[in-house]
Structure formats: C-alpha cells, structure tokens
C-alpha cells in the first residue's frame, strides 16, 4: 500500500523543520498503523502546520482479509461465521443483516419468536457496542481508561448473556437463515430482568459523572463539526448522522424483524460535534433498554427456526437488506446464480462511509482534535477493510 514517496519519507529519518514561522514546510506525521488511538490498524497521514492540521489522508487495508471473495466459495449457511468477523464489536447485527438478505433470496418465512429474539439480541449488542464506543471516546480525550472500565462492566454483563445463549462472547454466530440457532436458555430471562433493573441507575451515574465535566466539554464541544447537508451528501449514517440533526433511523424508516410493534424514540443532536455524538449514543442506550423491556413483556413462544434444507439453493436473483447496526446502516447485497454459494457477497460498511467525513471534520483543528474526532466517529477497522 505504501507509495514511493511514503517510503522516501519514512527512510528519510530526519525531522522536517518543525516551525510555525512562514516559509517553513509543514511536518508530515504518520499516525501510523501502530498508534494507541487509531482503534485498530489504520493509518492517518496528517500534514501539520505547527499543531494545526492542514491535510489528513487516510490509508486503510491493513486488515483486509478478502472476505467477500472467500464467501463466494461457501454455501449460504457456511458464510454466517464470516459476518461475525466483519464488525467484531457488533456481531449480532451483522448476522441479522446477512440472514435477512439470505431469507429474502430464499423466500423463507421467519417465525415470530425468532423475530423477537433477533430484536432482543440486536438491541443488547447495541448497548455493548455503544458502551465500548463512548468509553474509548473519553479515553481518547485523555481520561485514563476510568470511564472505559466502568462501561466495560455493563458490556461484560451483556457478553455473559451472549455466552449463555450461543456459547461465544464476541463472534456469536447465533443467527441462522430462517431464525436463530438455539432457543433461549431458561436462566437468560432472569439475568436479562436483573440487567434491565440495574442499567438505569448505572446510566444515571455516567450522566452525573461525565455530562457536567468541564474538561470534556472543552475538549469535545465544537470539535469535529460536520454540517447537516455535508452529512447527508456524504451518506453518513447512524449516531454520526443523527448527531447533526437528521432523524434517520432504519428501525423506523424501514422496519424489519417486527420493529414497528415496539415504540421507542430516535435521539437527534443539534450541532453535529463530537459531544453530540457522545450524547446521542448515551440516549440510544436508554431507548434500547425500553425496547428490551417490551420484547420481554410479549415474547411469543413457538418455533425459533423455520425448517429449511441445510444447503438450500435459491433461484437466481439478487437481494439487499439493511439493518441499523450500532455504527449506522449496515447492508448485505447477495446475488445468487442458482448454485449453493452466493455469486456475489457484498457488505455496505457504515464505518468506512462515516470515516470518509474525517478529513472534512479535522482540517483546521489541532492534532489532538483529530484524534478525538476519530474516536467519536467510532470506527471498526474489521468492517472498513473486510
């Protein structure tokens, strides 16, 4: 990936003049693949004039595993584990999106209990992913992992519930085409009840601790601002889009898995800066808890998996299904040519598209602001590079 001039720069080994006077050439700093706050292997080539960022160039591809090509040699069911590893922080949402697309292709009817279980685990995954996103965002602002570990405490409880049902914490591989792999174990609902009982008090703690923090305001308010029109034009999605004021949420705009039966709100920010994204994520966690409460109250019983031959062969055609994953609009586009394996398997990664706005947000700010903005966009490099 590195072009000739990069190697020259790296080999040069000397420091360009770090000067702020005029007639001085700017410093090119590689926030390289090995950097504590790039959330994975991702390189941000920043051209600095003193501390002011003049140009930011993103280099991706360090985690490319060519999943979309590999998926073409595996049957539809064998592809499900791939989707866990695309966005390893929100595996359930990925499974859900892929299974919806495959079901549309195969024309399978999903039983109501499976729909409710899918909504439950998608919302649990949103809480865990937002806990991770907000924690690392504040850690990028400089607080020494303290808020991160507090939020990890809730994330642990969610991951324990995942482990209870499908044996894995991160790469869940729980959903199948036509429903879910296993039924809910009987000890899951009591743990979920106690989780729902504790969470509001925990969130009140975070709000009391973090929202009035003067330094967090100074570091995040007015930083990494993106305007309403620019956000829509660069097709951002998820909390980054909603922070600018656009009330666009797939669970409402294009309901799937029975989301139209649950009533919940879509939080929307105003200025579209880093702090608004943080607030939108905090508010979304509360809405997810509301949905979970409704899912438990009227959880239908009955089959949790439509019976389907293991290697069903869909007739030729294409399908595109999209889901509101914690990072934004996650879409799966499948083309079948009648064979057991998909002819084309493509995933619309929300992180990559949200990341494209980073340059627009960070030019003009300082180096520290660029890092905080990157943290607030909440990218997952697995999803970007696939």
């Amino acid at each position, binding site marked *: 990936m590195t072009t000739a001039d990069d190697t020259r720069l790296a080999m040069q*080994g*000397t*420091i360009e003049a*770090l000067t702020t006077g005029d007639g001085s050439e700017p*410093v090119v*700093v590689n926030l390289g693949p090995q*950097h*504590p*706050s790039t959330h994975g292997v991702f390189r941000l080539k920043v051209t600095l004039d003193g*501390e002011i960022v003049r140009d930011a160039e993103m280099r991706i591809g360090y985690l490319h595993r060519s999943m979309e090509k590999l998926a073409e040699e595996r049957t539809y069911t064998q592809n499900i584990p791939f989707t866990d590893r695309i966005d390893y922080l929100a595996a359930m949402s990925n499974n859900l999106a892929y299974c919806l697309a495959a079901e549309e292709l195969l024309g399978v009817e999903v039983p109501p209990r499976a729909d409710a279980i899918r909504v439950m685990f998608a919302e649990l995954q949103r809480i865990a992913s937002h806990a991770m996103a907000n924690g690392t965002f*504040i*850690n*990028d*602002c*400089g*607080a*020494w*992992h*303290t808020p991160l*570990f*507090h939020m990890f*405490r809730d994330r642990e409880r969610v991951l324990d519930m995942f482990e209870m049902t499908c044996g894995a914490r991160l790469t869940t591989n729980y959903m199948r085409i036509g429903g879910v792999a296993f039924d809910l174990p009987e000890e899951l609902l009591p743990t979920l009840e106690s989780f729902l009982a504790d969470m509001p008090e925990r969130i009140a703690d975070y709000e009391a601790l973090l*929202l*009035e*923090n*003067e*330094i967090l*305001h*100074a*570091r995040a*308010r*007015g930083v990494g601002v993106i305007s*309403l*029109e620019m956000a*829509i034009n660069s097709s951002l999605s998820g909390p980054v889009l909603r922070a*600018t*004021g*656009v*009330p*666009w*949420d797939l669970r*409402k705009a294009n309901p799937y898995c029975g989301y139209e039966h649950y009533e919940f*709100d*879509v*939080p*929307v*920010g*105003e*200025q579209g*800066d880093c*702090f*608004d994204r943080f*607030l*939108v994520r905090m*508010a979304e966690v509360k809405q997810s808890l509301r949905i979970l409460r409704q899912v438990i109250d009227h959880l239908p019983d009955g089959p949790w998996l439509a019976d389907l031959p293991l290697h069903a062969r869909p007739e030729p055609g294409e399908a595109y299904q999209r889901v509101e994953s914690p990072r934004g609009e996650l879409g799966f586009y499948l083309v079948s040519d009648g064979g057991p394996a998909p002819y084309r398997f493509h995933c619309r990664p929300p992180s990559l598209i949200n990341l494209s706005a980073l340059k627009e947000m960070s030019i003009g700010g*300082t*180096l*520290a602001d660029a*890092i905080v903005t990157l*943290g607030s966009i909440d990218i997952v490099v697995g999803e970007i590079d696939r």
Partner: protein
Amino acid sequence: MTDFTGLTSVLGAWYDFRDLNNLQRLITEWIADWGPDWLASIITGVLGALGVLGVIGPTLLILIWVERKVIARFQQRYGPNRVGPRGLLQPVADAVKLILKEQLAPRAADKLIFFLPPVLIFVPGILIWGVLPFGPRMSVADLNVGVLFLLAVSGTAVLVIFMAGWSSNNKYALFGAMRAVAMSISYEVPMVLALLTLVVFSGTMSVNGIVEWQQQEDVIFILLFPLSAIAFFFAASAELNRTPADISEAESEIVAGYHTEYSGMRFGLFYAVELGNTLVVSGFIATFFLGGWWLWGLDQWVPSWIILLIKTGAVYFLLIWTRGTLPRLRVDQLMGFCWKALVPATLLFVVVAFVQRTLLISEGWDTTIALPIMAVFNIALTLGAIMLFARVSRPAPLRRPARIRMAGAQIGGLRAAREVASRTEEPQFQVGGD
C-alpha cells in the same frame, strides 16, 4: 521544641526518634574530637544525603504500587495482586523487567544528548528534597532562599526534557518536548506568584521559616490563601506533566511524548523520576499549605516527620485522584487557562497579601482576631474569582447548551431534520450552556 514533663531525659538523646538530627549530631561530635573537621562536614553531608535517599528509595517503590492499586480501584478492578503478597513486589518485578530489556537508540539520534537525559533528570528531582523540612531542625539544607531554590531547580528540569525530546529524532518526541517546554515555562509564573503570597505573609523565603510562621500564628496557609493553594496545585501538576495537563506524554495523541524512543531502564528512570517528583511536590504542597511537620501541637507527641508523611500522602492521593479521573486539556486550552485565569488570579492575591500584610504590621492588628477575618475574606474572594472565571471565559461553542431531541414520528431526511429543529418544546436532554 517546647519541653513537657516526664520525658525531659529522653529529649536530645540519640534514640529520641522525634528529631533524627540527634543521631547525626552525636556522630559528628564523636568524629570531631579525633578527626579533622572537614571529614566531619563530609560525613554529615553523606549522612544527610543517605537520610533523604533512604526516604525516597522505599517510598518510591511503595508509591508505584499505591498508585496502580488506587487507580485500579477507581476503575472497578483489583490492580496488581499476582507478584508478592497483594502485589507488593510488582514494582520490583517492573524494575527487573526494565533492567533486562534491551536499551535501543534510534540510528539518527544525537548520541551524546540522547544518553544524558535519563541521568540528568534525576538531578532536579533529588536536589529539591534538600529544602524540604521534615522537622524543626530536620532539613538537609535550610537555605534562607529555600523557595527560590525550589523554583530554580524545578526550572532546569525543562531543559532535560527538551534534550530528551529533541535528541531522539522522532516527531512524536519533538512534539512532546516542545509542548513540555512551552507549558512548564508558562506554568512557572503562577507557581512563583502563588509562593510569593506565602513569602510576603510569612516574611521569610526559607521553607522552614514558612512552617514556623504557621506554627506561631496557629493557622495553615490553605485557609488564608485558598486560591494560591489551587493555583500551586494545578501549576505543580502541569510541571510534573500529570493529567489533566499531561500533554507532553499524551498517549492518545503523541504516543509517549518525549520518552517515546527510550526503552529499557532509561524509560524506567523517566518513570521513577516522575513519581519521585510527584512525591516531593506533594510534600511541598503539604509543607506550604497544610503546615508541614506541625499540627496544632500534635508534633510534641507524634514525630514531626510522620505528620509530614501523612499530609504528603493525603496530597498524593489527591494527585492520583485527578490523574485517574480527569480527561486531558488541549495545548492551547492549557496555555489559555494559565495566562487568562491563573496568572490574573494569583496577581490579585499577591496584591491582597501585600495589603493584609501591611495591615498586620503597620496597623499592628492583633493577629488572633485579624487572621480569621482575613481568612474568611480570602475564601470568599477565591470563590468569587472562580465563579467569575467560569462565567467569563467560556469559549463560544460552550455557550449554547448541547440538546438532544427525540424525533418522534418525523423520520426522514432534510425536511424532517428542519421540522425537528424547528420544534420549540422542551428538549429531552439538555447539558451545559449558561
């Protein structure tokens, strides 16, 4: 030290551990009668140094363990508990690991200037200990320019940091060095002004004199000059490069700042000196503002240096607390805070100290009545200054509150966004703003 009944025989004997000078005095007298006097002076110097290093060495190791355990507790976890009983040997394990690690040096680094800083950075750290009084007569060097000595020596640490950052030929290190230099210079001004109020009020520049003034007037300076205490605390934490002012080694931005290229025991030295400096600075905060080795007469019963260590521990916990919880300020905000808030506030308090000092001296007010009134006035002035600064200096984006609204039924693109924005009813969630 005032005598008290019953234990007079103990007073001054070598085993009177309340004043460790007795032991040293006994040894020098013993040497003086048979050896040359310059040998005696060398021995006392060595004993003083050993006393100080004896204090620093073990406390440094314990402090590394204390800091990691306390921050772990903030973060809902246990902290080191594998090596040794309850993790006590963890610092030793760290030190051994660092010693065994290979010491790398970048190819294009400036060799001479690259190898000096880990050694030189200890010099200011240890020199400052000389001026800290552990007891009425227990300080290694009771200079009558003690406060100035403290400022001068802590000023030289900046140069060593610059040498480290510049010589390791790494962009992150150079950023760290430039930030550290810019910040320490500008935070020396409020530090000087905060100490100026103390020097003016107690009349002497010697650190022991300040403590004796507090003992004589039965008041501790944090009550008289709370803003100087806050300014000194923040300026000291900026000089030490600790959060919320640790921009010179901000992991999230510039990897490890000026000591990015140092590995092995060289990095260990930087880390140890940082903790040693924190200990000695919290010792000085305790001495200047909490009355050092004196505690309303308790120092007759409890040895004075134990009182000082307890107070230092309290201030040290405060420093760990701010380090564990507060996020980091940006470089320009840090500079703005120093020049727009700390310097004017401390200047105001220097003027207040001069006025109150002349009232005490020339008007001849009786200190037992005058000091409490002045203390109340100063505390009120401090709160007023803080409120004024919080109100006045909010940058533009902070004036408008951050509001989160619930979109309710309007789900859609641009038109729906304008509709939601135009709604005037009370937002769901409002934070900040004035």
